[in-house]
Structures are given as structure tokens and as C-alpha cells.
């Protein structure tokens, strides 16, 4: 019995020991597994899990920087920034993709821009089908976490899509440009496209020239959030604020620009011209009050236009100016003292023969013993050769250089052309003769406007300037007018001005001049050189002038390429010049004078 009891005790001991060992083994295994798991989490997957944990409690967003506006002189935006939306999807979270693609396409189809031509426009059903296929293709990318569906959506479209209540899609704000005054001044403004890195970048015009000032710098905000997504006040937070771009306040007079654009558009239709431009500049400081050229493009849809339209012909196009250049040559001859207003031309009674060339007047009429004033009034080529002969090649060349030809004007628009003057050593007498009436020399329209400003400005050469100030968030930078040396004396400027006044009062276009205003001007009809000769059918008709002649408030150039109604500047560009000036006089505070 005692033995039996002892055996039972032994058995119990064994059982307890076995259990203890079992438990020990179990706990050891558990500890080993635990250590293994911790090793996996803390050593092997440490970085990945740390990132997951960080993402779970961290939130961040990019703070958009607003691109600066381009303002007219009265502070009205010619271009401003607006917010539009990028529609994106998270395909994993989207069910019933076919139905959702159909719903989205039904809204997005209204955002598709159709070509203006009705022939190439597609019916809505076809567009809807194409759009649905496109959206479906995007939504079927089930491996993708985030895919963009459509950019540049308007606020209305965003609201329409939100009303569909689709899960798994979202919107991100984006910056875009807005043109409250329409887009006719596209070549002046330029456009905003993308650079190689996909960032916004300005091209051409003001957008291109002032890209650095206009561009802002994006910011970033990061913070820690709780399980419900609310920010933790005592958590880590970091914010680098966005820096908005500076705005440009231009000299552009909104009313003058509008009038110039409106008249130019009508003028192109009326005279059947293929291209036209109007430049209005204040001669005292070179401020560009208006600059319009057609045909142009819409900066917002620049992609759908021929890239040749991006180029502004006022600053980037060079041409032979024709008779409007005569005022520069005559002013030079008067200033050099080789010609006086009283002198008479002794070689104006018939065509001039120079080497193998015979040079006549535009209408084959000749005026012997003409004074310089009459030469300008009749736009007499033989008279201009007489004045140029008096100057000689050296002085002639020196004066046209001083008037700013052969070098860029420095206007603050991207892409200014720099047509060079031929080397003086290559000039022959025939070059002197043809250049005296504006042939055989290439200039840009803005150079011609600047040269005429010398006359309107008492002999000083201003630099054309579009922007008046650069305005930052809490700073302003004035852009001061720039002047070069005096080109001609004030006396010469007055003499040539009086000749230009008479050219308007007695010239071919006197019927179009608004009554009561003293205008100094000159017409020009330049032939277009093609493959080494001049095309007799194609001309560039121009009129350049300023008003009021005694106290000029503006210099304006109107130029029409290949007008069909008449090739002459006096019958096309001049009436257009006077029509524009008549409308802008009140806006510039120019009152009529009873003497004119």
C-alpha cells in the first residue's frame, strides 16, 4: 500500500514535470517565434514598415503658386491666373467601370474643343464613343494606384462630375491662364506651355520675356494626423509657403488697345490684306500704348494653331519700309546741314539714271525745283536721291545707325529680330539711292516706330518699353525709360515735323484726316522682294505719324500686307490710321484745335 502510494506520487511528479517541460517548450517556442517576428518587423522590414507607419500618420500637400498677372495701365488684367481641375481615378476602388466610364464620358465630352470648321467637326455621338473608350481604358488599369483622367476641367464640369457621386475618383487643383479681354493680343502676351520637366513656362511676348518674374515657386505643407485624419496639434508639422509670381503692370492702354485691335480686324477685311499691324507708342518715354497684329492666335489654345503665328511681326518681322523711311533720310540731311527747308532740288525734273538702273517716281510725275517739304509731300524718289547725294554714304550710314537701325531696340518682348545693315564698305551709289526711299534696307516695324519717335520727341531716341512696373507681394520695381544720345537737333525735328504735317494736309489721304487735329505723317508703299526681284503685284502699305504734331502724345504705325483693294498706303493704311486716331484722341485727352 505504501509502495503503491509512492508510485502514485512518482507518477504525479512525472506528469507535472512533463507538463512543465511542455509548457516550457511552448513558451520557448512562443518566445522564439516572437523574437523571429520582431526580427522580421524591426530588422528585415524595418524601413518598409516605418514608411507605412509614417504614411499612416503623416499628411502633406503641395501649395500652388499663382503665376503673376499681366495688367493694363489701369490695373485691369490682360492675363490672370485661374484655378482649374485635374480629374484622377484610383482604379482599384472603382467597381462597374463600364457604367462609370459612360457617365464620366457623358460629361467630359462637353470639354472637348471642336475645330471651328464645321466640316472637320465630329458629331457628339462619335466624340462620346471615343471619350468613353478612352476613359474605360484608364479605369481598367487595375494595378495603378492613381491615374489622371482629364486636365484643365472647369468649375462647372467639376460640379457636374461630383454630382454623379462616383467613388474612387478625385480632383486636384491646377493653375491655368485666363484672358478676360479675349485673345486678340496673343502675339503681345505670348503663352504658357510646359518645359522639358513638365513645369509651366512662358513662351514668346511678355510671358516669354518675363517668365522668371511671372513664375511662382510652389510650397509644401506636411503635418501629422490622427486616426480620423484630423491634424495633431502637438505633432510634427512643417510648412514651406508658396511664393506667388510677380505681376506686370504694362503701359498698354486698354481702350487704345481695344480700338486698335477692332479697327485692324475691320481694316483687314475692308482692304483684303493678308496681314496687318498697329503699334502705338508714347514718344516721350517709349511706352507702348497698344500693339496689335493679325492674324494671331488664342494663347489658351496655342496648340491648335500654326506655330508661325506665335511670332510677333512687329518685333520679329523684317521688311523693306518703303516711303515711310523718307522722313528719316530727310531729317538726317536737314540735321547735317546739307539741305535746308528753302533749298530746291536741281535733279527732280525727270527719272534718275544710276549705273544700269533708272529710278522714277511712284506716279511718273515730276516736280522740278521742289523744296524738301514738297519732296516729302509728293513722296518724290528723285528728290530723296538728291538729299541722299548731298549727305554722302558716310553721313547717311552714320545717321541711320543713330536712328537705331542695325541694332535691336531692346523692347521687352521675346524674340526681337536684329536685321543688320550691310557693311558700309559694300555700299555703292545705287544703295545710297534706293535706301533714300526705303528700298534695299531691312528693318523691323518697331525700329521704324522708334525712329519716328525721335522726330516726335525733339531729337531724342527712346527705347520702346511695354512694362511699366513689376509688382511683387510687398514690393514694386519701376522700369525707368531709357534714352540714347540725341539723334537730331530740336530745330531739325520741328522742320521735318512741319514737312510731315504738310504731307498730311496736302497729301493723297487728306480726305481721311479727322478735322481739328494737327497730324504729322507719311504714307509708304513698299514692294515685297521675292527671289531677287520685286513682285509688282504685292505691296506693304503703311502709314506712320504722330499727333498732335506740336505736342505729340503718340506715334502710330499702321501697316497692311498685300492689300487687295488698292496697293497704295494712302488708300488703305492711311485711312485706317486716321480712323484709329479719331477714336483714340478722346481717350488720350487730345482735344481738337480750331486751326486744323
Amino acid at each position: 500500500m505504501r509502495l503503491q502510494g509512492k508510485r502514485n506520487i512518482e507518477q504525479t511528479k512525472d506528469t507535472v514535470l512533463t507538463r512543465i517541460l511542455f509548457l516550457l517548450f511552448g513558451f520557448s517556442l512562443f518566445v522564439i517565434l516572437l523574437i523571429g517576428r520582431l526580427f522580421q518587423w524591426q530588422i528585415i522590414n524595418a524601413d518598409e514598415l516605418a514608411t507605412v507607419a509614417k504614411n499612416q500618420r503623416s499628411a502633406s500637400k503641395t501649395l500652388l503658386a499663382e503665376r503673376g498677372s499681366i495688367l493694363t495701365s489701369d490695373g485691369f488684367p490682360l492675363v490672370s491666373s485661374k484655378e482649374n481641375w485635374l480629374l484622377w481615378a484610383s482604379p482599384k476602388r472603382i467597381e462597374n467601370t463600364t457604367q462609370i466610364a459612360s457617365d464620366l464620358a457623358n460629361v467630359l465630352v462637353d470639354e472637348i474643343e471642336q475645330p471651328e470648321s464645321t466640316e472637320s467637326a465630329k458629331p457628339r455621338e462619335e466624340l462620346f464613343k471615343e471619350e468613353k473608350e478612352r476613359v474605360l481604358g484608364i479605369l481598367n488599369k487595375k494595378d495603378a494606384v492613381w491615374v489622371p483622367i482629364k486636365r484643365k476641367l472647369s468649375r462647372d464640369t467639376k460640379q457636374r462630375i461630383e454630382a454623379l457621386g462616383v467613388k474612387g475618383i478625385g480632383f486636384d487643383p491646377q493653375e491655368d491662364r485666363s484672358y478676360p479681354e479675349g485673345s486678340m493680343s496673343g502675339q503681345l502676351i505670348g503663352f504658357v506651355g510646359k518645359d522639358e520637366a513638365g513645369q509651366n513656362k512662358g513662351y514668346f511676348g511678355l510671358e516669354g520675356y518675363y517668365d522668371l518674374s511671372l513664375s511662382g515657386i510652389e510650397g509644401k505643407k506636411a503635418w501629422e494626423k490622427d486616426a480620423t485624419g484630423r491634424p495633431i496639434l502637438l505633432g510634427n508639422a512643417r510648412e514651406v509657403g508658396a511664393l506667388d509670381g510677380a505681376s506686370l503692370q504694362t503701359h498698354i492702354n486698354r481702350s487704345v488697345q481695344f480700338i486698335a485691335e477692332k479697327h485692324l480686324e475691320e481694316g483687314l477685311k475692308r482692304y483684303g490684306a493678308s496681314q496687318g499691324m498697329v503699334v502705338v507708342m508714347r514718344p516721350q518715354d517709349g511706352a507702348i500704348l497698344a500693339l496689335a497684329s493679325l492674324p494671331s492666335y488664342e494663347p489658351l489654345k496655342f496648340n491648335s494653331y500654326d506655330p508661325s503665328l506665335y511670332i510677333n511681326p512687329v518685333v520679329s518681322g523684317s521688311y523693306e519700309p518703303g516711303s515711310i523711311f523718307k522722313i528719316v533720310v530727310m531729317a538726317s540731311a536737314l540735321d547735317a546741314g546739307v539741305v535746308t527747308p528753302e533749298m530746291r532740288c536741281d535733279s527732280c525734273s525727270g527719272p534718275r539714271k544710276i549705273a544700269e538702273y533708272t529710278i522714277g517716281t511712284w506716279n511718273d510725275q515730276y516736280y522740278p525745283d521742289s523744296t524738301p517739304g514738297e519732296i516729302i509731300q509728293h513722296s518724290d524718289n528723285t528728290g530723296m536721291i538728291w538729299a541722299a547725294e548731298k549727305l554722302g554714304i558716310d553721313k547717311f550710314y552714320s545717321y541711320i545707325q543713330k536712328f537705331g537701325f542695325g541694332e535691336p531696340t531692346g523692347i521687352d518682348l521675346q524674340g526681337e529680330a536684329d536685321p543688320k545693315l550691310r557693311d558700309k564698305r559694300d555700299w555703292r551709289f545705287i544703295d545710297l539711292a534706293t535706301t533714300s526711299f526705303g528700298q534695299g534696307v531691312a528693318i523691323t516695324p518697331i525700329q521704324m516706330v522708334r525712329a519716328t519717335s525721335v522726330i516726335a520727341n525733339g531729337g531724342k531716341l527712346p527705347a520702346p518699353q511695354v512694362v511699366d512696373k513689376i509688382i511683387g507681394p510687398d514690393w514694386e520695381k519701376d522700369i525707368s525709360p531709357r534714352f540714347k544720345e540725341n539723334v537730331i537737333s530740336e530745330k531739325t525735328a520741328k522742320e521735318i515735323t512741319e514737312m510731315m504735317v504738310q504731307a498730311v494736309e496736302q497729301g493723297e489721304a487728306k480726305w481721311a484726316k479727322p478735322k481739328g487735329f494737327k497730324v504729322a505723317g507719311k504714307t509708304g508703299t513698299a514692294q515685297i522682294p521675292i527671289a531677287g526681284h520685286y513682285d509688282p503685284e504685292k505691296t506693304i502699305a503703311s502709314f506712320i505719324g504722330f499727333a498732335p504734331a506740336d505736342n505729340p502724345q503718340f506715334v502710330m504705325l499702321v501697316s497692311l500686307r498685300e492689300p487687295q483693294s488698292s496697293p497704295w498706303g494712302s488708300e488703305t493704311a492711311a485711312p485706317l490710321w486716321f480712323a484709329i486716331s479719331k477714336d483714340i484722341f478722346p481717350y488720350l485727352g487730345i482735344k481738337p484745335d480750331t486751326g486744323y
Partner: protein
Amino acid sequence: MRNKSKIQEPKIKIGKVWTGLLGLLAVVIGTQLIVSSILTGTGEELAQLEGHISRLSRENRILKEELTGHSSLSKIASESTRLELAKPDQIMYLDLSQPVAALPQ
């Protein structure tokens, strides 16, 4: 007996200390919970305020866009055409040196 009572006294003191420490811990935890709750509420309020600022800025921007759109010269010109307004054929110039306006002769 005297020795026994001498041994029991520290036990009571240790018990009181533990009770005090636990009480303090409870107060600290409670305070933490209250502060956390307040901060969470404030965080939510901050999020709401930021959302409000963002909405107002957006609204402000939209109003600005609408305002410029309505006051553009192209809009005014098209409206004046729609209303059949005529271009003035005579402009009266005011001169500060004269007491009344005069039409050009």
C-alpha cells in the same frame, strides 16, 4: 507582540505610498486624456478653419474672375451692340479754363 507591531507599521506606509502613486498616475492619465481630447477638438477646429480659409480664397478668386469677365471691354462692346447703343458722332470737350462745355467748331 511589540516586535510584531513594529514590523506591521512600514507595511501600512508602503501601502499608502502605492496608493498615492497610483492615484497620481490616474490623475496624470486623466489629465492626458482631457488634454488630448481638447487638442483633438482644437485640431478639428483648425482643420475646419483651414478649410474655410481655402473655400473663401477660392470663392474670392471666382468672384474676381467673374468681375473681370463682366467688366472687360469686349464684353461691354458686345453688350452695347446687343442694346443697340450708337457711337457718339459729336464729342464735347470740357476745358477747365472755361465755365461751360463747348462743341468743337
